[in-house]
């Protein structure tokens, strides 16, 4: 079996990094929504509290803000459900990509296959820079 180890490994490494970033972004979206939902729930609580504090005649006017806050909470809860599912999927994809990369790297090292060159590998080899240029093109 012929291998194309260096190019494939550098591709898998890139995929791993992209997946990791996607997972981080999805987590940030989820966290932002959690914060927004907490704020919306607080606003709903405040609106309800305001309704109890006013007199009977003014109570009608407090219904609007309560309904608006309830709508906002419901919207955010639905958005959080979606974001939560997306985050879990992105996290699993990231874990899979990282596990695969580690396993494949271990295999390549064990078989003595050529690994992708890194910028730090240049050293004194005059041809290394040329090879790195080749890697970048991949």
């Amino acid at each position, binding site marked *: 079996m012929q*291998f194309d180890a260096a190019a494939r490994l550098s591709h898998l490494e890139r995929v791993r990094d992209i997946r990791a970033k996607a997972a981080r972004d999805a987590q940030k979206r989820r966290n932002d929504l959690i914060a927004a939902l907490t704020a919306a729930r607080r606003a709903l609580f405040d609106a309800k509290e305001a309704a109890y504090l006013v007199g009977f005649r003014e109570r009608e006017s407090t219904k609007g803000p309560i309904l608006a806050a309830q709508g906002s909470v419901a919207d955010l809860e639905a958005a959080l459900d979606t974001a939560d599912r997306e985050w879990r999927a992105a996290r699993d994809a990231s874990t*899979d990509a990282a596990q695969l990369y580690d396993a494949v790297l271990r295999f390549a090292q064990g078989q003595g*296959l050529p690994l992708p060159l890194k910028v730090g590998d240049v050293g004194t080899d005059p041809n290394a820079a040329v090879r790195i240029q080749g890697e970048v093109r991949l």
Partner: protein
Amino acid sequence: MKALDKLKQAFAKQADAARSVQETVEAVRDQIIATGNDLAQLRATPEPQASAETALDREIANHMAAAQAALSREVAGLSGIARRPVMNLDPSPEEALSLQIALNPQGFRKLIAAELAEFYKGREAMPRDQRDARIKEIEAELLALETTEEGMIRQAEAAGIEILRRANADPRAVLALIEN
């Protein structure tokens, strides 16, 4: 508006293509799982009962020989032809087991043979050489399937369709040089 409709159609076609590619890869993955299960089952297939009984007989014969050697040492001590204390019965755990088996080899054989018969009840068996050859065939089949899957993923990637690789994909397939 027409341009927008065309764009929508193009995206719909692209989505259909992506779904179709994903389904094809999933079909190959189903085969990989099924083949992997076959392989696991085959690896767990025992040799025929007769082979196990032959191995048992061989093992008993080895123990009998070891027991005989241990007893010969004692005879040498008792008869005074060896320079060692007379009747030093201090067998190693292995020798002790051999001596126990030598005392009643038929009883020991009967005991283990009954266990073997129970183990083989309703169980499929296969001669070792036949099983090893079949394992090699299935391993090759599995690698071919994994290589096909990897080839599909690479083609999809080249067409801008992202398909996740399995975390437990075979590194040989993932690193393989695959000609398009």
